[in-house]
Structures are given as structure tokens and as C-alpha cells.
């Protein structure tokens, strides 16, 4: 491996890169350090803040669980099966990444809103989307499912199809082959995709605020505090959220690192 300062070009590149890294790290660090431990502790004690954080974690977890249930089979089919319109399906899965999230929220409202067919059908079972937990869940699901599906697909693609074939010749049915070979081998990718999706769901603002301003998830609460009380009141909440996300992110990287070592 060459060192960072091997020649002048490397040094120039390192300086340019450093600017970008500072641009990411500095504001985050500034926010986190601006409020002392006492203020952070006070923020944690704020019931509204805690409720928002709990709700956000919970909603994103449900969204991830739904994506897991339907997205893992989808990912497997994309990795293994050859069917007409496969590329179309792949594009469809990626679409939530490019659609503005507020537009995604509007689109969901058009289908799950109070007056719509689906909205009324679910209403019969007492499930309401607008201004309720299910609305938050579907907003998070919509915008962050590509993370899980794509990671799982890559995981399955990395499994040598011959391992599945060997399993079949050894007497394994397609189901047992999936659970005994494909799934355990793709598990790390699926898990890191799920964590990434969950983390992405935590930070969702645009789509959620259109479906459900209340009950408040953390990004919405942050926005409301900023709008109503200004930067000084929003900043400790932001610091807390950044710290929590950082912790989640570190766990994710640790899991990813283990995957590489296992190979």
C-alpha cells in the first residue's frame, strides 16, 4: 500500500479531500459539543423528546420488519430468477431513492388517505394512516426499502448458485436449500441492509410530515422546535439525535467489518 503522502499529487488530493471531510464532521461536532452534558440530560428528561424518539425507533422497526418479510423474497428472485421485466422491477425498487420524499408522501396520501378506497378499507379494521402510526410506518417503508432490498439482493448474488445445486442433489428441497444455504450465507448482507434501512427510516422527514405531523417523530419535532422557538431550542435535540444515530452507525459498521473478516 502506498502512503498518503507518496507524491505531490497525493498531497494535493489529500488537501481537497480534507475540506470535504471537515464539511461533514465540523457541523456535526459543533452541534454535539455546543450543549453541555447538563443540557443534554435535560433534553433526555423532556418527555416530548423521549416520546418522539421512541416512536421513531418503533415505527422504523415495523417498517423494516415489513420490508424484511416481503423484501427478502423479492431480493432472492431478483438475484436468481430470470423473468421478463426484471430490469423494470429493479428500477421500481430504486425509484424511492430518486423521488423527492415530500412527493412520495403526497403519492402515499393519494392511495392511503382518508377518502381513498384503501384508506376506507383499512378504516373498517380501525387502521388509520393519516396522523397516525401506520402513516409514519408506510412513509418510512416507502422511502427506505431500497436499502434493504438492494443489500439483500447483493447478498444473494454473492452466494454461488452451485452451492444451492449441491444442496438440491443432497436431498434438500428448494425451501430447505433456502433456509440451509442461501439465507445463512446472505444473512450478513441482509442484516446490514436492514440496519441501514432502519437508520434511514429514523431520519425520514419529508414523507412522514405529509402523512403525519402528529404524532411527532424526531425529525418533525426538531423542525417544530426550530420553527417555534428557534435554533437555541432545536440544537440540544439535534445533538441528541446525532449522537444516537452515530451509535447506530458504529454498530452497523462493526457488523459490516465482521462480514469482511468472515470471508
Amino acid at each position: 500500500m502506498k502512503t498518503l503522502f507518496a507524491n505531490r499529487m497525493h498531497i494535493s488530493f489529500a488537501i481537497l479531500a480534507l475540506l470535504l471531510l471537515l464539511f461533514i464532521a465540523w457541523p456535526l461536532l459543533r452541534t454535539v459539543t455546543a450543549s453541555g452534558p447538563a443540557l443534554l440530560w435535560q433534553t433526555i428528561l423532556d418527555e416530548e423528546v423521549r416520546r418522539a424518539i421512541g416512536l421513531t425507533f418503533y415505527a422504523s422497526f415495523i417498517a423494516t420488519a415489513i420490508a424484511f418479510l416481503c423484501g427478502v423474497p423479492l431480493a432472492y428472485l431478483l438475484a436468481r430468477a430470470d423473468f421478463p421485466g426484471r430490469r423494470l422491477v429493479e428500477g421500481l425498487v430504486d425509484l424511492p431513492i430518486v423521488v423527492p420524499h415530500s412527493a412520495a408522501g403526497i403519492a402515499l396520501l393519494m392511495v392511503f388517505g382518508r377518502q381513498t378506497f384503501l384508506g376506507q378499507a383499512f378504516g373498517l379494521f380501525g387502521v388509520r394512516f393519516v396522523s397516525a402510526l401506520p402513516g409514519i410506518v408506510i412513509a418510512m417503508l416507502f422511502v427506505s426499502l431500497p436499502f434493504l432490498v438492494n443489500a439483500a439482493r447483493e447478498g444473494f448474488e454473492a452466494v454461488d448458485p452451485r452451492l444451492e445445486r449441491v444442496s438440491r442433489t443432497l436431498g434438500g428441497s428448494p425451501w430447505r436449500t433456502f433456509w440451509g444455504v442461501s439465507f445463512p450465507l446472505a444473512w450478513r448482507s441482509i442484516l446490514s441492509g436492514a440496519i441501514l434501512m432502519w437508520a434511514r427510516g429514523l431520519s425520514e422527514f419529508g414523507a412522514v410530515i405529509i402523512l403525519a405531523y402528529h404524532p411527532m417523530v424526531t425529525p418533525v419535532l426538531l423542525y417544530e422546535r426550530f420553527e417555534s422557538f428557534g435554533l437555541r431550542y432545536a440544537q440540544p435535540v439535534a445533538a441528541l439525535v446525532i449522537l444516537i444515530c452515530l451509535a447506530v452507525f458504529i454498530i452497523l459498521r462493526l457488523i459490516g467489518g465482521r462480514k469482511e473478516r468472515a470471508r
Partner: protein
Amino acid sequence: MVKLPITYRLSLIADRGSSFVPCQLQIRDLWVELEGFRLRHINLDVAAGEYLVILGPTGTGKTVLLEAIAGLHRPSQGRILINGADVTGLPPEQRGIGFVYQDYALFPHLNAAENIAFGLRMRGAARRTVEERVAAIARLLGIEHLLRRMPETLSGGEAQRVALARALVVEPRLLLLDEPLSALDLETRQGLQRELKRIHWQLGTTAIHVTHDFEEAVALGDRVAVFKEEPAGEAGREGGIVQVGTPEEIFRRPASEFVARFVGGRNLFRGRVVRQAGETFVRLAEGLGIAAVTGLEGEVSLLIRPEDIVLSSTPLLSSARNCFRGRVVEVADGGAVLYVTVEVPPRFTALITRRSWEDLALEQGREVYLAFKASAVHLF
């Protein structure tokens, strides 16, 4: 090597209820169409307990044929019968056919013992049975010390033994081996080749072994099926079997120029081991005595790789070498190399570079000396 009595063979597997009964295979008018490759009109009969080698140049077609037999590709036409019963529509898990891939295809998340036990687990065998049978097959293959190891820590030869154990432990009616020795170094390859022969003797399993190596085919195969692959217009490539016979038949009476080119021109002879004055010779039918290194006795086959033969315009005098005078009868252009056939008799084929061809100023009809080491003579 002595074929073991059936009761002992069964005890090797340590399961009194089991039956390691070899099966016959028939393939009738089989076509398989894949994207870019087509298997063309395969007809093949494999007798119970037979070791059939499918021999052909490197390509994907032979693997497709094995996978089709195992039920991993759905044929577009034709039938596959095991002991007379049509299995064409059966999924792979219901065929009882073992499969060993060239690069082992061990499950990387399971250790060697778990890999071997996989098939038994899939069949819902009791834990005791699994342990006993894994231990028995590991003993048979001499891999007991490897059972706790993960696949990534195994050498090629060790991994292939584990893969073989994994396929054999479920007592397949038919064993398919897809270039099982090709990824191994020479020494390991020869060791495992002997092992395959021994296991086939002991268990009597019907086996189909795919290879591109003629020597391997001759050493292992009761019969050899020559597989040819060629471009086929819009379909991409297609492949089929062009000749089936004993190694001797394939070699002596190639049915087509392709077979002749692929197996012919190589130096396969039969002879008798003679020992005199501390030296070992193989006396050929033509009367020639070839110095060799061997522990074998009696009638043997011998093979000398064309690249092991050196041509020269003067006799090379060395005790380690065989040296014969002959006449160049044929030259086949192979690009950077040339295949030179020299009539001694018998006919030997040597592989030489274009440069040494020019240096030697050879041409058809010229007298030439050929030499090769006693250790370059492969006997079996």
C-alpha cells in the same frame, strides 16, 4: 485391488438398513436448451457399477450434461432413466444422485463434518445415525482429522475429499464428478485419482466423471464418452457425444477426425513389464523396450506425454533416457508448437516449439532421434 464383499461395503457406511446398490443409467434422445448453449441429442447408457468418463476439451457443455442428469436443468426433449424408471420429471432432491464440482462447492458457513452431514440432515436422519455415518465415511476417505476444520482452511485435495465424502455419505445411486481433479496440483491429483479408483472399487457406485484430461480418462474410465462442443449459429454453442468406447477403442479407432485429434497422436501403448540386470523395461508388441520406473508387473498400459519427448538430430546418450531412432512421418501445426509424429515403430508423437523445429531443420521423411526420461513414462 480386491473388490470387497458386499457386507463389508455396507459396514463401511455403518448403517445396517442401508443399501449401497449401484444403478444403471439410460439417457434417451436428450436435448437441453439454455441461453447460449444447447445439449444436442444425447444418448448414453451407463451400466450398474461402471465408471464412465466423459472426455472433451474445456468448455461448459460437459457440466451442463451432468447437471441435466442431476435434474438441475430441465430438458426440452428426451428421457433419463435410472434402473429403467423415468426420472426426467423428478426434482434433483428426489433423484439420489451425488454431485462433486471441480472447485468443491463446500458450504463456507459449515465445517467439514457439517458439510458431510448436510445431506443426512436434509433427509431428517437421527443425530446418532448422522454421527456414525459421517465418522464412517471420514474413515473411508482418511479425513477424520479434518472434520472440525472450516472449508477455507482446507487445501484443494482435502476440500475435494470432504466434497466427495459429502456426496457419498447419502449413498447416491449415481455419482457425478465434474472435473474433480482439475483444480489440484499434479501430486495431489495423482493421489486423489488413485483414491477415486479405490473408492469406486470398494463401494461399487456407478460413476460419471467429466474431464478434459486424456490421461485421467484412460486411468479411471471403464469406458470413455468423447464430448464435442462447437458453434451452432443463433443458438450459440452446442455440444454432444461423438463416440463412446473403452479407452483402448477410442484411442485405436477414433470415429472422427475430432476424436483422433483430441486423443490421437498421443503416445498410448500396451506392453509387458520386464526386469533384467536391475533395470525395468516395458516390452512393446512392436519389440521396442522402453525404460520405465514402476512397481507394476505384467501387462500394462503406458503413456508418454508428447511434451516430454525431446527430438534431436544426433543420439542423446544418457542412462536416464530412452533414445530411439525414427523417421518423421507427419507434422501437425499447432500454432506456436508443432506435433511431430515419428515412426520408430511404433509411432511416437512429440510436441516441439516452432523454434526448435527450425533449429533442427526437420521435414517429413527425415531421420531423427527421440529421447525421453524413464520417469516420463506413465504406467497403469
